[in-house]
Each structure stands twice: as structure tokens, then as C-alpha cells.
């Protein structure tokens, strides 16, 4: 699924600029614990999270996350947005909650890139 389709599905607001909107996303993962992301996510996934510290961007970079969606209208600080721009990781915020967003994306065909424990 392409990133632009995901932005539509989550009714997202894009917080960073200049990335390729046609970038392919291989699957999804929802997590609030960064170690969970580092341990259980495949490369090229969309990360849905309620956490919005700079560490989310660093974690995404280490785990080769394709893009981050902040759930329930959360917004990271300007420093975090600047870091994401620098590392070219798209940040999107959506007013909807985690369950709703995972449901929408899964139904639209974005499968899970979470590996079971």
C-alpha cells in the first residue's frame, strides 16, 4: 500500500515535508513501547503509536520504519519534527484512536508486520 492511501485512510495530517508520497509501505505495527518496536517489527512497516518523544524517531530509524502515525491527535515537539525531517521519516497525526486506525488499515489490506512473541 502506498503512503498516500494510508494518509487518506487515517484522515491524517502530515507533519513533515518532502518525502515520497508514493513510498510503499509493507505492513503495519502498533506499539507504545519502543523495545516492542525494536524487537517485533519487520523492516518497512508503518508504526502507529501514542508516544511522541524524539525516541520514536530514533527507534523508527533503527528499525527501518517507513512512516509513523501518531494516534488520538498527538503531536510531537518541533525538535522531534525537525529530527524526522533530517532523517527523512514521514510523521503523520490522526485524530482517531489506535484500535480504530489499526482496524481501518487492516480492513483496507495493510497486513500486520508484528512478529508474535
Amino acid at each position, binding site marked *: 500500500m502506498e503512503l498516500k492511501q494510508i494518509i487518506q485512510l487515517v484522515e491524517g495530517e502530515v507533519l513533515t515535508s518532502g518525502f515520497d508520497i508514493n513510498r510503499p509501505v509493507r505492513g503495519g505495527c502498533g506499539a507504545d513501547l519502543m523495545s516492542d518496536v525494536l524487537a517485533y517489527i519487520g523492516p518497512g512497516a508503518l508504526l502507529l503509536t501514542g508516544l511522541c518523544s524524539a*525516541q520514536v524517531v530514533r*527507534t523508527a530509524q533503527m528499525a527501518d520504519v517507513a512512516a509513523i502515525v501518531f494516534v488520538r491527535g498527538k503531536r510531537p515537539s518541533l525538535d522531534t519534527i525537525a529530527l524526522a525531517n533530517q532523517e527523512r521519516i514521514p510523521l503523520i497525526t490522526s485524530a482517531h484512536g489506535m484500535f480504530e486506525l489499526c482496524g481501518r488499515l487492516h480492513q483496507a489490506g495493510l497486513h500486520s508486520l508484528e512478529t508474535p512473541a
Partner: protein
Amino acid sequence: MNEGPIRADRVITDGAAGLITRVEELAYELKIGEVMTSPAKTVTPDMRMSDVLALFRDAKVSGAPVMANGELVGIVSIADLIRALQENNTAAAVSEYMTMQVTTLEAGSPVIEALKLFTATRVGRLPVVDQAGHLVGIITKGDITRGVLRALEYDYQEEEVRKYRARHLFEDIVSDRTSLTLRYKIKQGDFAHGGNASSHIKRALVRLGASPQIARRCGIAIYEAEMNLIIHTTNGGAVRVEIEPHQIVMETIDDGPGIEDIDLAMTPGYSTAPDSVRELGFGAGMGLKNIQRCVDDMYLDSTVGRGTRLEMRIFLKPDEQLGDSSSPADRAGRNGGASQ
């Protein structure tokens, strides 16, 4: 300065497409003087519009500043020329058709100023002046596009050159055993910069030719270890990475407080992290287990009151070796020779 090696047939590759954010930065970094056409083709007020037509055709320009006694007095554009042609009046003087109110740009201003003016005024070109107000060139949107592309191409080539050099580092330097060591100091509690060292390490490995899988495994392991220095130590610590063609050894060292029960620390879910750390998404007690999963060998040494040392090793298979673009077979032959 304005005639760079831009080829009309240049296509934007996927790699260059990733540099699009760079375009915005460049709009602020690049100076108008760096992208303008200089010197500008100029005309005088008493020339005829037919002369302007000849100039535009021969020099392939679509506008020119009008100069009288070294002073900028107006600008004449292709739109003015079309008016003269419609009125069948190409014998008229430039002064009859030129625009006299001319907005100018300073050569030292960032390109973004030109973009703003082009958007606000809808004009196609603007004369560029120096600080004293003397004409030094002319700028169009095309000049900006070319200037930005040139700068992007330069950036892109620079990264390619870096990768190329880094990849050949181990071949270019002859020794019985060559390694590259990276060191970083990590401050206790410095969450704002948490992960910076790991980010540099991952990038270095990619430049040295590590596969995405190897870079990812190293990145994840060292990031968990770097965060442990930030979260759990008294005085921070050090990250040290030794890179060799056949293995990567990563290490974190600190001087306290030390770990009382290493088996317990390794148990998934065990964590002494405070709630403030949990709010950042860390402190789930999974870090050491994560590290173990990512690396081939892990040693954790700790003494309470003395400190902790964590060593992580990744062994590279023959086809994953760093700093060498030759085939595995080739390499086997050469290694055999070196060990005689």
C-alpha cells in the same frame, strides 16, 4: 558561476527523489548570486524593439534589463515585445514599451526571497543588484531550478563518493589486520540526544557497505545499549565500535552502579527504570533480550560499585564482508595469500 554542468537529459532517480526536503533547505542556503545568470544581456532605452527581438532570438532570453548610463532604468520582456509586434511598431524605441517600475533582488539574499517575489508578483524575471545597487545579473525561475538541481546533484554525488571511499577503506590500507574504531561519550539522563551515537554508527556501517539487515541488527542492539547508559548509569558511559571486514564488535562501558543479578537483568520484563523513563517508551525490561536476539555473541560483565561492560559481536559471512566489493571467491584467494 551560473553555467554549471547541468544536462538537459538529467533524470531524477529514486535516490535524488529522497533529497526533496533538501530543496527547501537549499532555498534558504543558496544565495541568489550563486544561481543567477551573470552578466545579464542588457539593452538601452533608445534601441528599437526590433533589436530586442533579435537579441531575444539570438541569446535565447525572454527579458532584459534596460540600462542608461550604467543605471537600471527598466526591464523589457517578451510580453512587451509581443505588444510591439501586435501594434506593428517594432521600429519604436525600447523606452516606449519597457516597464519602468522594476523590483530588484540583492545577490546576497537567499533564493527563497526570489521565490517569494516570483510568487507574489507573477513576473518571470528580476534583475539582481549588488549592495551598491549596481546590476550584476538576472534571475528567472529556471535559474533557480537549475541551481537547486546542481546543488542536489553535488550532495548526491558527495554521499556516493563517501560510500565509495568508505567501501574501499579496508582494501586501500594494507596491514595484517585493519580495523576502524568509533567512540562516543554518552551522558546520563541525556534523553534529548539518545540514539544519536547509534544513528551515526548505523550510517557508518551502511557507508562501509553493510547490508540493510546487518545495519539494522547493529543499529537496534547498540541503540538499546546506548539507552541503557542514559537510563541506568550514574555518570553515563562510553560506546565503542570496532569494525573489521569480517566482524563488528560493539561495546558499552560505564562506571556504575553495576548490576547485582545479571540473570535477573536478562529476564524479559525485569526493569528498574523509573516511571519517567516508561513514559518515553523505554523501561519495559526487554532491552538486553533484544540485544541478545540481534547479535551473534553477547557478554555482560558487571560489578556492583564498579560498573558494567556489555560486548556485542556480529560475525559477517563471506558475502556480507565490509569494505570490499570483490566477489567472495576473490576474497578467499586473497585471504589465503595473506595468511601464508
